[in-house]
Each structure stands twice: as structure tokens, then as C-alpha cells.
């Protein structure tokens, strides 16, 4: 059992207009086996939270903490965080020139596990995982994400999730840009990884659509860099019907539902 704990997290970025605070005190605790959905309108800071957990240098933590089983995640470099068991499925995976998927997957697996995977089982595992995610076998010989479609890139992110077996998976709008078939395939992948019982999931999404396939235990609504409402899966259903409009007037403060036209 592991715990990823975020406490009163404040994060800012540098912009041309100066320093801008994006996260204004976020607290969240995720345990192994739990699925937390973070929902919110554009610009609410959802993706900032994801990138900050992974350690993207663009984001500066000004106060607060992130710990993984008591270890200070914020003191770790990007690769150390990954090796500690944090996985970020990126919203926009980049194309990496010169590196084949095969080489990349093996190198990353070796780095994460601290030893090279047994060749025979590894090859078999990769092949099986690719088949389940309906990724063509020839992708293994292509460069990482190079020339992949948006949907293919997302599937390859989930492929990594299944192969690297992290303690915590942060899925940053993995559902955006996917058609319904791809969404199902990707969701099944996440559910398989979750079913091992060794992973906690932080699912960041703009839409409720993916929650039909991945069932959250907790739903947190993000508005203007803060969690404005928290609840169980029923909160997602309510958002599906009502949208984010009722939070609009709140400016970061949890308010009673506004009357909408």
C-alpha cells in the first residue's frame, strides 16, 4: 500500500507578464487501489498539477508538498520521480528522433527496475501489451511517437503504463482527441493496470465521457487552481448534466449551485 500525498500545493509559472500563480493550495491524497478523477474547465490548473507531480521544470512550486510514502517528491529529479513509481501519461507526447520504440521501452524499463528485463519474457510482454492496445507490431521498429496519430500516441502512453507498472499513474487528458473506439481501448488498458491492485490512479479529464469506462472512487472539481468540490462518482454524473457553469461565479470558492438558465 502506497500513498501519494499533495498538501496545500501552490505552483506558479513565468509568463511574459510576470509570475503567475496557477495552483492556489491543492490538497489531495491518493492511495493504492484508488481512482481519483480531477475534472474542471479549461485553464483551471488540472494539467499543471499533472506536470508538477512529474517534475516539469516549467512549473515552480512556491509552497506546499508532494510526498510518496513520506518521501519528498519535490526534491527528486524528473527521472528519480519516475523510478520512485510516478508515471505521467502525457497530454501531448513528443516525438523523439533516433530512438526506436523497442529500444526506448527496454531502456526505460531497465532504468525503472534497476536491472534489464529478462529478454524472453520482456519481448513477449511487449508484444502482448501491444496487441491488447491494438498497436501494430511494426510500431516497435519506429521511432518514439514519430509520425504517430494522436490516438496512436495515447495508446503508446498506456502501453508504457502497462509495461512499467508504476505505483501511481497520472493520466493527463488521455481521453482528449480520442474517438469512441480508441477511448474504449485506452480505458481497458488503464483498467487492466488498475486491476493488478498495485496502482493508484489520478485521472485528469475535461469530459465525463471517459468516466463511463473508468470508474472513479473520488471526483474532485478544479476551478481556478483550487478544488472547489469533492465527492464520489455521483458528482461526475451531476457534472455531466450541469457542466461547469455553476462554478463560474465562484472564483475558486465552493458555492452553492447557481441557478442556470
Amino acid at each position: 500500500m502506497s500513498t501519494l500525498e499533495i498538501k496545500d500545493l501552490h505552483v506558479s509559472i513565468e509568463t511574459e507578464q510576470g509570475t503567475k500563480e496557477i495552483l492556489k493550495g491543492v490538497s489531495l491524497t491518493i492511495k493504492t487501489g484508488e481512482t481519483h478523477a480531477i475534472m474542471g474547465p479549461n485553464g483551471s490548473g488540472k494539467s499543471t498539477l499533472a506536470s508538477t507531480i512529474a517534475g516539469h521544470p516549467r512549473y515552480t512550486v512556491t509552497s506546499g508538498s508532494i510526498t510518496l510514502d513520506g518521501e519528498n517528491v519535490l526534491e527528486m529529479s524528473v527521472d528519480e520521480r519516475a523510478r520512485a513509481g510516478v508515471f505521467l501519461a502525457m497530454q501531448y507526447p513528443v516525438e523523439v528522433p533516433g530512438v526506436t520504440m523497442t529500444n526506448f521501452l527496454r531502456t526505460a524499463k531497465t532504468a525503472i527496475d534497476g536491472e534489464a528485463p529478462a529478454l524472453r519474457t520482456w519481448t513477449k510482454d511487449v508484444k502482448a501489451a501491444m496487441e491488447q492496445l491494438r498497436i501494430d507490431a511494426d510500431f516497435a521498429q519506429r521511432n518514439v511517437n514519430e509520425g504517430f496519430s494522436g490516438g496512436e500516441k495515447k495508446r503508446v502512453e498506456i502501453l508504457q503504463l502497462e509495461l512499467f507498472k508504476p505505483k501511481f499513474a497520472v493520466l493527463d487528458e488521455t481521453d482528449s482527441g480520442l474517438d469512441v473506439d480508441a477511448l474504449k481501448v485506452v480505458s481497458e488498458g488503464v483498467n487492466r493496470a488498475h486491476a493488478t491492485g498495485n496502482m493508484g490512479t489520478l485521472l485528469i479529464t475535461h469530459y465525463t465521457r471517459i468516466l463511463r469506462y473508468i470508474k472513479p472512487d473520488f471526483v474532485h472539481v478544479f476551478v481556478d487552481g483550487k478544488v472547489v468540490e469533492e465527492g464520489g462518482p455521483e458528482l461526475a454524473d451531476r457534472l455531466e448534466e450541469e457542466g461547469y457553469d455553476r462554478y463560474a461565479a465562484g472564483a475558486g470558492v465552493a458555492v452553492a449551485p447557481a441557478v442556470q438558465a
Partner: protein
Amino acid sequence: MTDITTEKARIGAPSAQPFINGFTEEGESLSPINAGDATTTTAAPAAGPLGGASVKSHSHGGGVGVPDSSRAGRLTSYNLADFKPLTGLEEDWRFTPLKRLRGLHNEALTGAAPKVSVNAPEGVVVETVGRDDKRVGTAAIPEDRVSANGWENFTEATVITVPAELQASSEVSVLINGSGTEASAQHIVIVAERFSKSVVVLDHQGTAVVSENVEIVVEDGAELSVISLQEWNDDAVHASSQQAKLGRDAKFKHIVVSLGGDLVRVTPSTRFTAPGAEAEMLGLYYADAGQHLEQRLFVDHAVANCKSNVLYKGALQGRNAHTVWVGDVLIRKEAEGTDTYEANRNLVLTDGARADSVPNLEIETGLIEGAGHASATGRFDDEHLFYLMARGIPEDVARRLVVRGFLNEIIQKIKVPALEERLTEAVERELAASEH
């Protein structure tokens, strides 16, 4: 408070480095190093069928003051005096910082030439000959002033002959070892006689300021690989014209590997003189801060039914690392049935480096099998680094992963195991140099 390590802070940090002095983003302005009042020249078009204007005298086509748009029209001569002093405005010198040529273009090349020692398998004949040897001038004629200056000033030539039908049991290793900075001239002739098969490695090391002419004759049915390896010391200046003449059904592989030296400019060319021949021209270059590595190649499809394939790959890192690749492929009217492809790929690893890439394809006949060209320059940037590191891969491993994968494509084609190993290690050293 957060404690972000410097390593992390560096990733994604905006570059504070200015652009390379003297170059605009478009890459068309001349360096102030060269130009008095630099007029802007336009880049050669990436492709363009050429009119009949290119069909003209092979040797003295261009004419003084009349720029000739065809590669065929370039002035060629054994006499230095035929070439006007360089200004840096010339099309073929516009990327080269002339001041760093250290006299190769405007001084008598009287320094001691780098020492040549040849280790050849049985049967291969190695001779040192004078200027009047009849084999000198059989495959090459200078196409630029620096090459002509070398031709005018060399005192002796090394001639390597692979006799007819000899299948050389191992590669011919030619160590060219420089130990001075006085401008000098070097001349090497390689003759692969009919139906012979061999590999020649020109291994440039040490320190030198040298204009080198390499003549390569590949006779009918012969198969020859020439690998020109530039692993000079940091202060070396090297201009090398390497011209090959291919006979009927000849197979020629030419590989340029430029890693060391302050300024290295290799101008390889392949001329087809009879049908059925094939040429593969490959290159690998890795420029560090301040290095200028230039390669300008020419494939002259002058006869029918020949094939050529060109692939050059370069990596750049550090401030003012500059690479130039210009690939001229000419398919003359007579060259029906030609099949050719040329490509250049560059990988820019850090800010402040510059890669110029100009593929030129001239086609004077439509009756060809195929003709294509491609050029791409990619960046290994902080987002790539973040992606790989977010998968647990440490920064140094991530960088190696990308560069190795990129350059291995060329190294694998060398097919001399000892050399492949040596180059893999050399690339690792270059990578290690980038990690502070």
C-alpha cells in the same frame, strides 16, 4: 519550499544564447567573416529542372563573372591562376569562414605535408611518386581555388594500386598524421583496377593545415570502399577534394566521417563514365562548439543506367558549432535510366549550433528510373529530454540514446568491424564532452 536541482532547472529554461554571429535565421546572408559588403544570395532551389544552359564545356563552363546555375558549369582547372582570389561571396564558399582557412586559399602551401604511412594487405601496391607520374590527374581536376592551390604545391603523391582481380584480404589503412600548422599540400591517388575488391581507410589525425587532393579511379567491374576519417586535433584545418571516376559496372562506396578539427571541408564527387555503375556516398559528422564541418558533394550522372544513393547525417552541439551539407546531383541529358536519391539529416542537440543543408537536384532528362532528395534538421530539445526522463531514464542516458540511434545508421554501413567499434567509441566521447 521547493528545492529544484540545477539539473532540472536547466531543462526547459529559455535559451540565453544569442544566435550565431553573422548568420541570419534564413541562412542566406553571408558571414561578415567573409563579406566586405555582403550581398544577399538566395539559396539554390531545393529542386529544379535545369534548362539546356547546363550542357556546355565540361572544364571551363562557368565563365568569370557569369554565374552559372548548373553544377556542370563550374570552373575546373589544374592552374591556380585560373581561380580568382576568394572573397567568400562565391556560391561554394559562402558558408566557409575564410579567415579560419589559415592561408590554404591565399598562400603558397610550403609546409610539410602530413606524414603518410600505409598498412596494406598482400598484393596491394603502395608507391610514393613525383608530380610527373602519369597517374596523377587521371581522376581529378580541381574545382575550387583551395584544391588548385594544393595541386600546384604538392611535391610528392602516394599512389595506392589494387591490382586487377585482387580481392584484398583486409582493408588498406592509410594513416595521414599531421604535426604542424604551416599550410601544406597533400596528394593521394587510389586506383582500384578491373574486378578488384578492396576497402581503403584514410585516417586523418594530428594537427595540420592542409589542402588535400584525393583521386580515386574505380575501373570496370571493381568494387571499392573509401572511408575518409577526420579525427584531427582541435586546431587542424583540412580541405579535401576527393574525386572518383567510375568505370563500367563499378561499385563505389564513399564514407566521410568528420569529428575533429577546427575547420574541415570535404568535397567528394563521383563521376560516372560508363553505364552500370553504382555509388553510395555516406557521411557522418559531429560538430562541437566552435567547429566548422562542411561537406559538399557532387554526383555526376553523365552516362545512362547508373545508380547513386547519398545519405549524410550530422549531430551538432555547443555554441557556434556549424555544419554545412550541400549535395549536388546532376542527371545529364545522356543519363537515361538513372536512379538516384540523396538525403541529409541533422540533429541539433543544444542551442547556439547551426546546420545548413542544401540539396540540389538537376534533371536534364525525363527518362529516368527515379530521382529524389530530402533534408531534415531536427532538434533534441528539453521536451524530448523531459519525456525520456519522465520514463525514468537519466539525462546522460537519454542524450546518448538519441544520438547513438541517429548516427548508428551510418556507422553500421562501414562494414569494417574495428572501425565501426572505433567510431562508436568516438561518438561516445563526443557525447561525454557535452556533459558538464
